[in-house]
Every structure is written in structure tokens, then in C-alpha cells.
């Protein structure tokens, strides 16, 4: 009471301001679309600044050239010509592609049975616990996990000592570290949860009566899997493939640490161009080429799976 009497002069003014604001709000948020735009505006600006701007800079750089210490800003395709004609770059691009595809295949093929097991064999009350357990190894740093794989796969590592100790092999295996195999193993492990989760979600969404209907219509368990479960899980598989494939092609930490000289990938070369050879334009051109390759492969993959991605209920 006292407050409202003493402050009677100031309060109406504040109220007026608030009123104006309240009136302005509905105009902005009149349609749902406008509300939607308003909500996505901050993340959109953020994405624009941190993604689009650097991307544009990279593309622009790739058309410039480096002349020792000076940057020549005339636009030219010289970098691209060089990248495509020099067999070294071609080989690195191809190897990156092959390694990424291998990592993707290995990851998704191991993730699927795990996701299937959690979705179909784990009692509903335990499912979230299992998902939680799967993510636990990924609470440690990525670098640490890469080093751990070095310990496991190394010449005197856990795997080799165990196998020699058991007398299964006479001398340590050397094909498992400092080459492309090691890169594939390490990356496949690193991306496992990212592949398990989308496949698990897709499997969880499958109405179990569909599987019974298939059995009822005469199909065995295997055929039911092939004709019903797998096609309905495909959106999850496609998501898993893209989630694993797209970032692996640009990975440079793992090949650097466990890849040895023959396990290096295009990202290592890009890093070298930028930081060691001081040739940012060449590095940018290679980055753009790698991106183009990822985009092309992803689009082809999406196209091949288009029938599974159409709007299902």
C-alpha cells in the first residue's frame, strides 16, 4: 500500500513502457513462422559467424596464391590445378576417402548389433542404463583414448604381449600400429556411440507388432529382419553413416598419432600447408576439395537410400 502511494508518479511510466513492449510482441510473434524465426535468430547468427564466415574465408583463400611471404590476392585456379595434377595430393585424398569409408563400415557394422541388442534384448527398464554405460568410455578425452589404443596396439603393447604370451603368435604383429589399420581401429572406436545412438533410436521406433505381422505372414526371423527391421532401421543407419563418415575424412589427430607415414590423411597435409609450408591458399584449396568429395559421396549415398528416407509415419 505504502509503496504504491509513494511511487505513484514513477510506476505509471514504467507501466507505459511495459505496455508498449507487450503490444510490440504480438505483432512480431503474430504468425508461428515469425516466432520461429525469432527463436532461431541467435543460433543462426552464431552459426553464420563461426561456420559460414570461416568457410567463406577458406573458399576465398583457395583462389589466392602464396608467393613466399606475400599473399597474391588475384583470383586464380592455380592451386586447384596443382592439387589435381600432383599425384601426392591425389593419393592422400584417395587414401582419406578409403580410410573414412572403412571406418564408417567398421563402425556402423559393429554399432548395429549393439543397438539391436539394446533395443530388442534389454528389458525396457534397463535400456537407459545401457545407453549410459556405452557413453562412459567417452567421458575421457579423445587424445587419451588415442594414446590408449597406442598402448593396446603397440609393438610391445597389450595385444601383442597377450598373443605372444599365449603362444598364438611367435613375434609381435606389426600391421596393427603406425599404418592405416590402426587409424581405422582407433576412429571406429571413437565414433561408435555416435553410430549406436541413431540406429538405436530408429530400432526403438519400430512398432513390434510389425515384426509379429511379418512372422504371421509366414516369414522366418531372418527374413523378417531383412524385410521389416532393416528397412525400417535404415534412416538410423543412414544418419550413423553420415555422422561417422563426414568428420572422419577431416581427422588429423588420429593419423598423426597412430597412422605412421603411410596412414596420413588429407587433413595432415592441409595442416602442413597452413602451419609448416606457410601456404594457406594451397591448404585452403585442399580443404575445399576434401569438402567437395565428402559432399559428393554423401549426396550419392543419400540418393541411393532415398526410398527409406521418405516420410514414413
Amino acid at each position, binding site marked *: 500500500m505504502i509503496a504504491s502511494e509513494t511511487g505513484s508518479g514513477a510506476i505509471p511510466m514504467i507501466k507505459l513502457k511495459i505496455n508498449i513492449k507487450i503490444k510490440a510482441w504480438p505483432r512480431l510473434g503474430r504468425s508461428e513462422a515469425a516466432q520461429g524465426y525469432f527463436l532461431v535468430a541467435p543460433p543462426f547468427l552464431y552459426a553464420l559467424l563461426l561456420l559460414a564466415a570461416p568457410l567463406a574465408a577458406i573458399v576465398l583463400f583457395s583462389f589466392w596464391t602464396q608467393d613466399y611471404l606475400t599473399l597474391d590476392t588475384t583470383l586464380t585456379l592455380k592451386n586447384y590445378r596443382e592439387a589435381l595434377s600432383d599425384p601426392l595430393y591425389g593419393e592422400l585424398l584417395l587414401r582419406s576417402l578409403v580410410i573414412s569409408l572403412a571406418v564408417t563400415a567398421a563402425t556402423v557394422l559393429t554399432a548395429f548389433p549393439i543397438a539391436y541388442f539394446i533395443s530388442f534384448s534389454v528389458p525396457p527398464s534397463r535400456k537407459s542404463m545401457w545407453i549410459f554405460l556405452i557413453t562412459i568410455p567417452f567421458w575421457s578425452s579423445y587424445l587419451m583414448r588415442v594414446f590408449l589404443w597406442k598402448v593396446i596396439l603397440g609393438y610391445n603393447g597389450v595385444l601383442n604381449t597377450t598373443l605372444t604370451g599365449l603362444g598364438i603368435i611367435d613375434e609381435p604383429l606389426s600391421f596393427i600400429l603406425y599404418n592405416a589399420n590402426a587409424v581405422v581401429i582407433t576412429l571406429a572406436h571413437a565414433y561408435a556411440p555416435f553410430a549406436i545412438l541413431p540406429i538405436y533410436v530408429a530400432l526403438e521406433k519400430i*512398432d513390434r*507388432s*510389425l515384426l*509379429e*505381422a*511379418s*512372422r*504371421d*505372414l*509366414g*516369414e*522366418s526371423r531372418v*527374413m523378417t529382419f531383412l*524385410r*521389416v527391421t532393416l*528397412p*525400417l532401421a535404415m534412416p538410423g543407419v543412414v544418419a550413423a553413416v553420415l555422422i561417422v563418415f563426414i568428420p572422419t575424412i577431416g581427422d588429423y589427430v588420429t593419423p598423426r598419432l597412430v597412422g605412421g607415414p603411410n596412414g596420413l590423411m588429407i587433413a595432415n597435409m592441409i595442416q602442413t600447408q597452413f602451419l609448416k609450408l606457410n601456404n594457406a591458399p594451397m591448404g585452403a584449396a585442399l580443404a575445399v576439395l576434401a569438402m567437395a568429395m565428402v559432399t559428393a559421396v554423401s549426396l550419392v549415398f543419400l540418393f541411393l537410400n532415398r*526410398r*527409406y528416407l*521418405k*516420410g*514414413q*509415419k
Partner: protein
Amino acid sequence: MKDTLGVERPIIALENVEKYYGEYYALRGISAEIRQGEFFSLLGPSGCGKTTLLRTIAGFEELSGGRLTIDGKDMKRVPANVRPTNMVFQSYAIFPHLTVAENVGFGLRREPLSRDEKARKVAEALEMVGLRGYGARAAHALSGGQRQRVALARALILEPKVLLLDEPLSALDKKMREQMQTELRRLQRQVGITFILVTHDQEEALIMSDRIAVMFEGQIAQLDTPQQLYRRPNTRQVGEFIGVMNFLPATATVSDETHIEVEAAGLGRAVIAPDQLPGGWHPGQTQSVGIRPETMSILFPGETTDRRVAIGTVEDLSYYGDMTYYVVRLDGVDRPMTISMKNLVGRPVLDRGTEARVAWDARSLVLFA
């Protein structure tokens, strides 16, 4: 389907079938024989085990005890995919990633038919359920009624010995449901396949079935034709579940095996014919009688009858246009009873509080132990 002795062999025989989930007994000794080509219904309140029984027949649930034979063969350890049954699921279970035609033709993969023959069979099946020309549609874009027809066509195309339907009409609106009831019945006569329908809707069961098994708590309370179930329910529970039934306290006065007299509160003494007795009845047992609302009538003032007459008061009424439902309390009875009257030309609708003279017949009394 006659055996060597020329006796009709049941297409499905259930002998003391039991199913328990841990401590919970979902089916407690079900015995029944389902005849070749009949429209059989499992009727009962939600949770009484109808779905469980149907899934047991389909092969999705293992029996915990008892025996199940289909077409003379014991179904122990016979998986669902080789049983001669097909099911229309409550959710319809239409494959969302396939077209209507692919859904309907799903089970034809193993049939030794050419592509063209399969396509023709699919077209025929779609025609049969009234979905001609829908083959190329995406299955997920269908309405509820259409999904159900696809589910029917998909099951019937395999010409099963028995078609199992789990509450197939419960998701449809009233109009659609009534239309599908007649259509299902027509379809069943046309294909001659045994249908087993699960429903909790007594009216639906009465309309559609040749025979009905009424289930309560994992047991069959009564297995009979719709008319018999309605007219002569075995227990109060069955009488209450099917249609409306009034119950009056009663005592058997004179009773031997052939001549029974009961004294029903409010109505008076009545002689009961032996065929009105419930199965397993023995003298001195009757505690209540049931009587259906439409077997009684309220006489309007001045009307005479040669039927028995009891006196009561109209407590309430609901006017439905074609019918009026009166709530009448007979003199000397605590609980009021329902009497339904057709609104014939010239018959006045009585007011609340007026005296009602209720005409009834001893024939329409149902005795319960």
C-alpha cells in the same frame, strides 16, 4: 472336415489351455472347440485374456499348460510363421515402408507363382475388400478404415484355415464400424474361412457371430449362440454383460426335477419350465431371477391383458424417439428395474410418478444359482 467316423472335426480344439505370466494367470483352463467355417467371437471385458488367447492360437505366446490343436495337429512348438492362421492386428500393423500392394502381397513371397500371378492375386484381394486401384498408394497415407481393409486383404490372400481378428473395429468411428461389421460378415460367408473375432463390445459380438465365448478373468463363462446367450445366460455375470438385465431376489418354493415354482420379489409366484433352468441346477438353489427389459410391458390406462400383471411406480424415464426406457420400482422391491417400450402409435408416454401396471410372462424369467 469330417474324420473317418463322419463326425465333424473342430478346426481348433483347446483343451484346458493355461497361460501365466510369472504369478499372474492370464488364462485359467480354457476348453473349447471351434468349428470349421464358423464366425466365432471371444467376448469379455478388457483384461480378461481375449488377446492372450488369440495370440496363443496365432503362435506368439507359448502355452503354459493344456493342449491346442489346429486342424487336428498339435501346435506345441509350431512357430507362428508355419501355423495355418493369419491375424488382423489391433493396430493393423501395416508396413509403413511398403505400398498397399506390397503390404497385401507380403506373404506371397514364398508362393510358387509368377510375378503376374501374384499381381493378379493382390488385385483380387484389394477388390474383395473394396480397395480396387489403391495398390500403388503409400501405406502410411491411408485412413483407419482403409488400413484395416489392407490388413484384412493381406491376411486373407494367404487363404488361412483360421483368420484371427483382435478388436479390428474398435478404432473406427461408429458409422464406419457398423459398415465394417456387415462387410466382415459378408466376407466371412464369401470366403468360408473360420473367423475368430476378439471384442469387448457385446452388441458387435451378437450381430456378427455364429457362436460366442464369453470370458471373465481368464475363463470361459459361457459358450453359446448369440440367441441362447441373450435369452439363457448361465450366470448373472453373463446376463449383466450382454444387454440389460433386471435381477430380482427369488426363492424356489416347490421344486423337483420337472416342476419348479419360484417366488420372485415384486412379480409373484411363477411356474418354470425345465428348459429355463441353468445348467447344473438342482432344487432349492435359486437366489435370483433375471428378466430382460423388452420382455415386459407397461399397460396404459384401461388396457387389458391375459399376461401376468405386477404393480409399480414410474420413477424415471428416457425418451429415445423410437423407444422409451422406464425405470420402474415394483411394489415391495428395493431396486428399480428397467422396462423398454416401443413407442407405437396411440401409446402414451407415461409421466414420472404414475402407477405402472407391468405385464410379464413366466417364460421370460431366467434363473440363477
